[in-house]
């Protein structure tokens, strides 16, 4: 069995700060991490390899620095890693990104058939959840988003059964392999790599594919040109016209302060008081 896992190196958004005066992103010193949702995807692929044997190939599209993220995946136990990297990819939106990744996966497929493609449910920087569906559509694979559990795989029949998070419940689905799965968070816990894999990861001759190596002829489908969405302005959210009305703590007595607060809130917003009384009674 051959699984391809698509990952993305992202800035650790928890550590991004906005400059208080210029309202621009302060990226300096912000560590780059593997998109946390992608690790659930990688771990799931590795678990299937543990059970059924086979190969796990990790792919990312990104700048040369993304090599670090790929080597990390190798150290967890992935077999192969491909960095799809070319200046021509710059400025890609989700449509252009899914095109480039699907082209690269097609290239991988020429050497070894791909049974499953895994991605995280979304990235923490873009948060769009659009690249996974995009890749599935372009490769004409069945799409299974928000998968919480792989229940069964029948290699003879080329069938897979999964649980998928839907609105208001869980769908138990059966579909054909090959298919693309986007993994839900919290579905498994990433393993620690063993020593042998860590050494292998450090020495692994990483494949770096530019546009041509990824088999992309039509430059109109990648990068800025291949992106139907155009980003206009980027800005910080407007501050509310008024700062919060501050309730003073008198002599450090919270009880007193709370009484003041309640009096104000309930006088000005009688609906809230009514709502609370309704609930409590």
């Amino acid at each position: 069995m051959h699984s391809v896992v698509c990952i993305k190196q992202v800035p650790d958004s928890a550590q991004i700060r906005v400059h208080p005066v210029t309202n621009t992103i302060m990226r300096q010193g912000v560590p780059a991490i593997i998109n946390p949702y992608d690790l659930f995807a990688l771990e799931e692929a590795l678990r299937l390899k543990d059970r059924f044997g086979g190969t796990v190939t990790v792919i990312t599209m990104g700048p040369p620095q993304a090599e670090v993220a790929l080597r990390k995946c190798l150290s967890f136990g992935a077999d192969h890693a491909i960095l799809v990297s070319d200046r021509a990819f710059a400025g890609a939106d989700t449509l252009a990104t899914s095109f480039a990744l699907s082209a690269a996966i097609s290239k991988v497929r020429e050497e070894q058939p791909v049974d499953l493609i895994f991605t995280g449910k979304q990235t923490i920087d873009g948060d769009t959840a659009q690249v996974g569906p995009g890749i599935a559509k372009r490769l004409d694979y069945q799409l299974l988003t928000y998968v919480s559990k792989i229940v069964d795989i029948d290699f003879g029949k080329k069938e897979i059964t999964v649980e998928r998070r839907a609105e208001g419940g869980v769908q138990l689905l059966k579909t054909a392999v090959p298919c693309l799965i986007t993994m839900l968070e919290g579905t498994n816990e990433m393993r620690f790599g063993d020593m042998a894999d860590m050494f292998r990861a450090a020495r692994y001759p990483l494949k770096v594919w530019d546009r041509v190596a990824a088999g992309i002829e039509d430059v109109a489908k990648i990068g800025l040109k291949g992106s139907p969405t155009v980003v206009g302005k980027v800005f910080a959210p407007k501050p509310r016209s008024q700062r919060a009305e501050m309730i003073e703590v008198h002599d450090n007595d919270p009880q007193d302060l709370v009484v003041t607060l309640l009096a104000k809130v309930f006088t000005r917003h009688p609906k809230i008081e009514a709502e609370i009384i309704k609930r409590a009674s």
Partner: protein
Amino acid sequence: MSDSNDAPRKPARKKVELDPRFLSYKHVWVYIEAERGEVHPVSWELLGEGRKLADQLGVDLVGVVLGPPEARTRAICEEAFHFGADRCYLVQHDALRDYRNEPYTKCLTELVDTYQPEILMLGATTLGRDLAGSVATTLATGLVADCTELVIEAESRCLASTRPTFGGSLLCTIMTQRHRPQMATVRPRVMAMPDADASRTGEIIEHAFSIVETSIITKILQFIPDDTRDKPNLPFADIIVAGGRGLKKPENFQLVWDLAKVLGAEVGASRPVVQAGWAELDRQVGQSGKTVRPKLYIAAGISGAVQHRVGMDGADVIIAINNDSNAPIFDFAHYGIVGNAMQILPALTEAFRKHLAQARKAG
């Protein structure tokens, strides 16, 4: 590279002539999400927003209803008229009984190709995101996820979609100028629920969609509904007490629960708290969690990073407790208390309890 649709790139060009190919693309569409006969409220919220866009463009607002051949499916169209739709495209087919990507993508794509909307909006739910991504790729058009504001740019008639970016720390405005339709998803509770007008009616246009069940590869074996009794339903809660990292220890998070219990409120949490395991994922409020619109939001020990703010900004009244008087939350809360949440939360709980006891006596 490899950025999603929100990285700062070349600024949008100021003046864009609409491609003549797009002149035939008219009307604003809202995909009405219904599963097992239940309409997701985000669809009505989107009709409210779509009404404004359609009026501004001088076109019709259209609801798209896909479902099994049952009376209920048709009745959803009538409801859509009450919430502002002028017209509904209705497709009834057994293959559309439960959501599956393949038949739904084929059906919605076919409708778009046939009737050519200028704008197509979907809810950013698990269903909406799955469907929108597939449809946009098939149509090779632009799709903007999780929009918080949608406006028509007067000059170009283009849809300007604003969404949070960089984990919610900034906002950006995105346009799809050279492709149609312009697609956007919006999360539940981001837009206000419009008032229903039961006297409004509209035109139902049935579309015959042909697909053979045996040609659909994915089969639904079972649907296991959530046991909703214990599930927090933050997006629709009227009162929320939320706790953040300022509570210092997991034991202190109990103070949030205590206050919530007295108020009959739901409990919310900031991302660090969820990541630390003090609260479940379902309780996370913010960019990577839930968007809420309560009447009252009490934030204890939450600094108010934009990532959290985008999820709770729509609350009618926000009370913030934080020991740092410079915490960003005081810039958008309505009432602020600078102090130790560990002392103030119990005081609030006690004061509410007393107040309620009095009200009960008086009532």
